[in-house]
């Protein structure tokens, strides 16, 4: 290195000041650090680029698999739609109590009590179609008759009511609306019963 002495010009002395000035040295160090950092940045960027390129085929394969699967699922869309409707209507199917089952239970109770006969059966179901969780709410009014020859009609009706409760599904409520009371010389004593049942 050539030393610059006091015999050089002022301009040259200013130009060469970086050799002794600590801030110029610091500036140079910063420059070096930034340049070295660029090497690391480039290395990291290259590694990222390689990694991105490496997963690109996998991403493309997944996307194509997804599209293929979606188009295949689309083929079964009408059936899937039906199944979705069924799922939403499931409680209405599962919770349904057929009226014929209740009438069959009532028929069994009549068959078990020979002294009791059916005159009229009125069934109504307060089912709410607007409520997807609505349950069947049955009210059944029975008008029947009891043979007088069979003993005390009130006792016969009580027995029949018990039989009805046994035959009907659990939770059915049987009430006597009009008791079987002998009035005059009729061969049959009429009675009215009310059954209330809400499906489980």
């Amino acid at each position, binding site marked *: 290195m050539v030393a610059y002495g006091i015999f050089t010009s002022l301009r040259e002395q200013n130009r060469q*000041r*970086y050799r002794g*000035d600590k*801030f*110029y040295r*610091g*500036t140079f160090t*910063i*420059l070096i*650090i*930034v340049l070295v*950092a660029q090497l690391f*940045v480039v290395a*990291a*960027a290259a590694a*990222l680029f390689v*990694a*991105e390129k490496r*997963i690109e085929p*996998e*991403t493309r394969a*997944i996307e194509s*698999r*997804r599209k293929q*699967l979606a188009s*295949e*699922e689309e083929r*079964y869309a009408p*059936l899937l739609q*039906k*199944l979705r*409707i*069924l799922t939403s*209507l499931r409680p*209405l*199917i599962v919770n*349904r109590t*057929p*009226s*014929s*089952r209740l*009438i*069959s239970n009532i028929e069994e109770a009549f068959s078990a009590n020979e002294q009791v*006969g*059916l*005159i*009229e*059966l*009125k*069934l*109504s*179901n307060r*089912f709410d*179609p*607007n409520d997807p969780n609505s349950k*069947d709410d049955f009210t059944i009014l029975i008008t*029947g*008759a009891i*043979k007088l020859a069979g003993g005390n009609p009130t006792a016969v009706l009580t027995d029949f009511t018990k039989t009805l409760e046994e035959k009907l599904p659990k939770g059915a409520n049987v009430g006597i609306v009009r008791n079987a009371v002998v009035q005059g010389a009729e061969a*049959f004593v009429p009675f009215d019963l009310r059954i209330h049942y809400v499906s489980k």
Partner: protein
Amino acid sequence: MRSSLAAFLSFLVVGLTFVALEAVFLAARFEQLEARILQNSEMTFSLAKRETALQSFKLNKDAFENKATLLLSGYTPEPIAIGPDTFGDLFSLGVQISPQEESANKGAKIWTYKLTSTTIEFHRLMPAIAALENQYPLGRFLEIDLKSKGPPFALSPGPIAFTGIFSTLRGRQ
């Protein structure tokens, strides 16, 4: 201020900003890559599950189709056409069946049909009613009125007066 100090400070600020921006950019790209890898693995897992489900669905497709058709029978946007296929034995036995006027209301959620008969015996009518309920799992009798036309305890079965209101859920368009 000395020019050397000014140069030092300028380089320091610019150099730090430059390196920091590069670091932020690289970190963002790295996070993006990580998210992509995670998304790929999640997609692979979910696609595998969907493919398995689709395979098993394909195997049972016919059974599902049959069950769905059976369970949703009567669930139509239009009222059921009245005939032997739709009302079975009740139609064949001569029960009068008519769609109710209220069902024409577009807001109605159900189709209702009035059924009346005065010529069928109880023991023939009840199996037909049960068959109708079995045919339409979403169908319900809202009303049934059975009245004996003869005196109680008749020795031979006679026809009864039957009135019923049967409903089916109205299907969406």
